[in-house]
């Protein structure tokens, strides 16, 4: 049975609300950074900086990931979501948990806030993982993209659980003695295991769909899964067995990232929709930050490399898909079962939901902000920090405005159509002169 959004997935208000909260989190983070610009030039990971990073990872990326998981599995696995109402539990838990973690870091690694936040976010992600697995069991996906998505959520759950261990290690000597303080494993799990692999998995399906490409190679996605998983095994061994395996993990991660670059390049090259929509252009542009991150690693600039990967690659990719996914979700929620019909009944096209002028602002302000972060971390220039923060603020505001505009425009259009079915079509994109060939066969 085919999934229907709002039926096969969660009630639309759940993912839409979560996506909006994610977009808001980026703006809040950028505004907080404006008040703490000096943290960018301090040269150390201050509590404020760690809080801001978690606003980005848990707030922006995490919430959007969680919102997407309320619908995307139903579409990718072509089945119904196992527990459509789960978001009523997980979304508040994620919001409160993320806020507690951020407050905990901002207040100087306050253990109580951190532990409360870690418990809530861990619980939420364990539930979301259980839901994803239960959904997959209903119709086990065979394509590599879906499998990569599942694995990414496994790693994301491990990431927050590792965060819980870190929080516990700060207050419990027993925990610290048993597991050490595996910060690097926590970072690698989150950045590569969860975010990169999540983008690899969902991106292959979504980019192929939006670019009208015949699809990429399954082997590249499987290779990315294998390489990233191997890297995480190596890092786990290093963290818990207290041994050093040199640059092996880094090389494996670079290989995984390369697979994604090759995959996106292949889909992009084989696309039949030559002019991609602006949000999809942003998604593709995001991948330019991966080689930049690699270059910065080679130049021994780990903070700048992390900024390029997290804010540049992950940020732009998530931002691009955020706009597309939100417009699909809201449109479908409002018009899919409308009595008046969809586009035929006067509903706007998906592309009509966007404010075109906001898209380049979002793309270039966020890309400029990510680049500015790299420059600031390398040079330590205060002027660069100020410009960077302003760009990120503009990009985040533009993105939130776009997402809010999509929701408001669609809901308003839906209300205006809340009337009996029209007698005649009001929109047509008919091309009778060049329609497809037909063949007639008449039965007796």
């Amino acid at each position: 049975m085919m999934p229907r959004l709002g039926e096969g997935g969660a009630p639309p208000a759940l993912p839409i609300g979560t996506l909006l909260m994610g977009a808001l989190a980026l703006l809040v983070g950028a505004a907080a950074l404006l008040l703490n610009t000096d943290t960018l030039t301090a040269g150390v990971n201050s509590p404020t900086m760690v809080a801001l990073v978690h606003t980005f990872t848990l707030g922006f990326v995490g919430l959007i990931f969680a919102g997407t998981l309320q619908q995307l599995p139903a579409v990718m696995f072509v089945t119904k979501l196992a527990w459509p109402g789960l978001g009523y539990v997980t979304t508040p838990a994620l919001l409160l948990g993320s806020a507690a973690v951020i407050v905990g870091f901002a207040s100087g690694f306050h253990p109580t806030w951190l532990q409360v936040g870690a418990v809530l976010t861990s619980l939420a992600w364990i539930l979301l993982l259980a839901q994803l697995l239960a959904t997959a069991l209903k119709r086990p996906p065979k394509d590599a993209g879906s499998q990569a998505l599942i694995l990414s959520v496994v790693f994301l759950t491990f990431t927050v659980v590792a965060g819980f261990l870190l929080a516990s290690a700060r207050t419990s000597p027993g925990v610290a003695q048993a597991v050490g303080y595996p910060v690097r494993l926590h970072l690698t799990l989150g950045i590569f295991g969860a975010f990169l692999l999540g983008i690899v998995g969902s991106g292959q399906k979504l980019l192929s769909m939006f670019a009208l490409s015949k699809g990429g190679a399954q082997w590249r996605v499987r290779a990315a899964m294998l390489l990233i998983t191997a890297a995480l095994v190596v890092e786990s061994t290093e963290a818990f067995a207290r041994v050093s395996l040199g640059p092996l993990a880094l090389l494996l991660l670079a290989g995984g990232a390369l697979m994604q670059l090759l995959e996106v390049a292949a889909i992009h090259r084989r696309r039949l929709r030559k002019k991609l929509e602006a949000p999809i252009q942003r998604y593709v542009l995001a991948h330019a930050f991966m080689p930049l991150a690699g270059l910065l690693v080679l130049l021994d600039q780990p903070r700048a490399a992390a900024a390029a990967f997290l804010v540049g690659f992950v940020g732009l990719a998530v931002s691009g898909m955020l706009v597309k996914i939100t417009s699909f979700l809201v449109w479908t929620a409002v018009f899919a079962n409308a009595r008046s019909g969809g586009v035929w009944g006067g509903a706007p096209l998906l592309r009509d939901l966007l404010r075109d002028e906001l898209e380049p602002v979002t793309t270039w302000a966020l890309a400029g902000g990510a680049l500015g972060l790299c420059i600031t971390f390398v040079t330590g220039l205060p002027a660069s920090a100020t410009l960077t923060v302003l760009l990120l603020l503009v990009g985040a505001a533009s993105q939130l405005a776009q997402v809010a505009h999509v929701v408001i425009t669609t809901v308003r259009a839906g209300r205006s159509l809340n009337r009996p079915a029209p007698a005649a079509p009001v929109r047509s994109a008919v091309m009778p002169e060049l329609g497809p060939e037909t063949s007639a066969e008449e039965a007796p």
Partner: protein
Amino acid sequence: MTETTLTEILPALPARNVLESLRAVIDPELGLDIVSLGMVYEVTVAGGNVVVEMTLTTPGCPLHASIEADVKHVLGQVPGVEDVGVELVWDPPWTPDAMSDAAKSALGFW
């Protein structure tokens, strides 16, 4: 380009008229009608009963409910049509090659 099969069994109206009516059904994502997009594989008219066998750009397409509803809405307005059935099929899978030249041009293929 999709070659739509038109089948008529003591039809109340020509199947070709049904196919032309389906040009009012627009894919909300691509902004083009489903006939030009090559999504309609077969139209069968038996008396006043119409069955449309069609596909979508991808299995699990989140817009399928809307498009299916629009097909029923549009054909429900056509004189002579008494009942409309929509069968979604995935074999053969839709590819961009199924589109008409005008649709390809509209999406900037060339």
